[in-house]
C-alpha cells in the first residue's frame, strides 16, 4: 500500500504519555480524517510523524512511508539530514493559521521558490515559473503579482491557499493538514476544503486531515479516525463512523454535531 502507515506511535513527555499507541493508515488518493477533542493528541501526531515532537519528548513506534518511488520503513529512525530531505519534498504540512505559518518578512515568491530550489535544484527562473503555476493551481488571482507581495497583503482564505501551494510545491505524496480551515470564515472554509479534496484526487496525495470539526470531516474525509487521550479509539470509513459509531466516545462526538446534517453526510463520493 502506498501512503503513510502509523503504528503504535507513542510520545512521552516528562513522564506523561501524550500519544499512547496511535495507529492510523493514510492511503494515497484519500483524505483520512483525524478527529478528537482539544488535547487528544491530534496535532502532536502530525508533528511527531514529521519528527518535530517537543524538545525532550521520547518517541517510539513506526511510521512507514511509501510513495511507489521511495520507501522508508520507519521515518522516526531516519537521521536528521535524511529526514530534512523528506520534509517538504515527500511529506508536507499545512497549519491552522496561515497568518502565522507564513514568514511575514519574505515575499510569497521567495517562500514558494526557496524549497523548490533547495529540494529540486531548480534555477531561479524555473522555480519562479513553477511558483506562478502553483498559485494558479490553488486559484490565487493574478499569480505574477502575488509572487511579489507579502503575507500581510492577503486575506486569510487566500493565505491558506498560498500555504497549501507552498506545501504541495515539491509534489509531496503525503500532506498533513492540521486544522486547515479552523481559522477561516465558513464560506472560505468550503473553498479550501474543495481544493484539498481536488488535490487529493488529482495528485494522488495521501492527506491526513486533523480537525476537531466533524462537519469538516464529514464533508471531505474518506476514512475517519477518532482520537481520545492520545490513542485512536475508532478508525473506519467516514460513513460508518458518523452513522454507526461503535464506541461511546465517537457517538458523543457525533451527537454533539448540530442537528441538521452537514452537507456531504450520506452522499456517496465515488
Amino acid at each position: 500500500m502506498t501512503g503513510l502507515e502509523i503504528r503504535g506511535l507513542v510520545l512521552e513527555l516528562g513522564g506523561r504519555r501524550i500519544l499512547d499507541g496511535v495507529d492510523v493508515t493514510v492511503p494515497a488518493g484519500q483524505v483520512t480524517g483525524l478527529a478528537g477533542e482539544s488535547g487528544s493528541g491530534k496535532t502532536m501526531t502530525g508533528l511527531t510523524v514529521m519528527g518535530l515532537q517537543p524538545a525532550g519528548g521520547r518517541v517510539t513506534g513506526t511510521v512507514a512511508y511509501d510513495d511507489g518511488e521511495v520507501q522508508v520503513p520507519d521515518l522516526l529512525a531516519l537521521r536528521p539530514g535524511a529526514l530534512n530531505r523528506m520534509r517538504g519534498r515527500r511529506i508536507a504540512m499545512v497549519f491552522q493559521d496561515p497568518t502565522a505559518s507564513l514568514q511575514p518578512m519574505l515575499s510569497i515568491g521567495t517562500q514558494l521558490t526557496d524549497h523548490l530550489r533547495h529540494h529540486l535544484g531548480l534555477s531561479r527562473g524555473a522555480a519562479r515559473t513553477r511558483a506562478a503555476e502553483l498559485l494558479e493551481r490553488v486559484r490565487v488571482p493574478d499569480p505574477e503579482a502575488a509572487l511579489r507581495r507579502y503575507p500581510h497583503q492577503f486575506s486569510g482564505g487566500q493565505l491558506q491557499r498560498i500555504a497549501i501551494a507552498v506545501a504541495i510545491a515539491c509534489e509531496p505524496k503525503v500532506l498533513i493538514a492540521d486544522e486547515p480551515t479552523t481559522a477561516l470564515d465558513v464560506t472560505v472554509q468550503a473553498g479550501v476544503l474543495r481544493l484539498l479534496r481536488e488535490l487529493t484526487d488529482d495528485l494522488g496525495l495521501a492527506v491526513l486531515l486533523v480537525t476537531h470539526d466533524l462537519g469538516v470531516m464529514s464533508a471531505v474525509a474518506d476514512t475517519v479516525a477518532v482520537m481520545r487521550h492520545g490513542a485512536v479509539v475508532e478508525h473506519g470509513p467516514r460513513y460508518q463512523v458518523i452513522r454507526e459509531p461503535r464506541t461511546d466516545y465517537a457517538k458523543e462526538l457525533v451527537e454533539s454535531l448540530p442537528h441538521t446534517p452537514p452537507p456531504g453526510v450520506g452522499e456517496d463520493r465515488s
Partner: protein
Amino acid sequence: MTAVPLRRRSALRVPAAWRRPAALGGAVVLLAWVLVALVDPLLGLQDPLRRSIDVALQAPSAAHPFGTDELGRDVLARTLWGVRASLPLAVLLVAGSLVVGSVLGAIAGYLGGVVDEVIMRLADLVFAFPTIILAMVVAAALGPSLANAVLALLVVSWPNYARVMRALVLGARGQEYVVAGRLLGAGPFTSLRRDVLPNVSAPMLVLAMLDFGNQILLLAGLSFLGLGAVPPTPEWGSMVADGVTQFSSWWLATFPGLAIFSVVVAFNLIGDSLRDALDPRTAGAVQGSSI
C-alpha cells in the same frame, strides 16, 4: 549562497529608506561629519595640539568659538579633528559587538541546551564585573594601544547584544512559520537565517544605534586611563571625560558632547528608517501601492 538574498534585498528596499526625511536628515549629519574628517587640514583651523598656557580655559569668543581647554588648545579644532578618531572607532565597536553578540546569542537561543548554557554563562561572567573595570583589565593585559582597547571593549560589550538576541530568538523560534520552515526541509541554520533573524533584526538594529554614544564614552574611559587613544590625540570621549571635571568651564564637555549627540541621533534616525524599510509591513508606503 547568502550573497544572493542580500543583494536582492538591498537593491529593492534599502534605497527606499533614504526617501524618508528622518533618514535623510541622519544621513546628511553623518556625511557632514565624514566630510569634516576628510577635509580637516583644509579648514584653516588652529593646530588642535598647539598649547598656549596664556589662553588656557577661555570661554567661547571670536578667536576661539568653542573656547579653549586647560592647556589653551582650541576646542573647536579639537572637536572637528576628534571625529577622525571617534567616528570610525564607534562604528567599528558597534558593528563588532553587534555581529559577535548577535551570532552567539542567536545560536544560544536557537540551539538551547548545553550550547546555550556555555554561551550565556560566559556572558554572565562578563556581566559580573563593572564594564569599565573589566575593559581595563583586558586592555591592560593586552597592552596599551588603540587596537587592544577596541578588542577589550568588544569583549565587554557583546553580552548585551547576546542577551537581547537570545531572548528574541527564543520568542521567534516557537512561531508557527519557523516550524513550518523546518517542515519544508530547512535545517537549523537555514531556519535561523531565513525565518528567525529577519524577524528579530528590528530591535537589534535599534539597540545598536543606541549603543553608539555608549561606546564612544567607554572608549574615552579607556583613553583617560592611558589604555586607549594616546592623550594629545583629539578624541570626543576623552574631551568629555576631561571636561566634566572642570565644572566652571562648561564649554569643555559641552561641544564634544554635542558632537557625540549629533552622531547618536543621526544613527538613530537612520536606524529607525532602515527598520521600517526592511519590514515589508511598513515599507509598503514607500514601495508604492502594491495592492
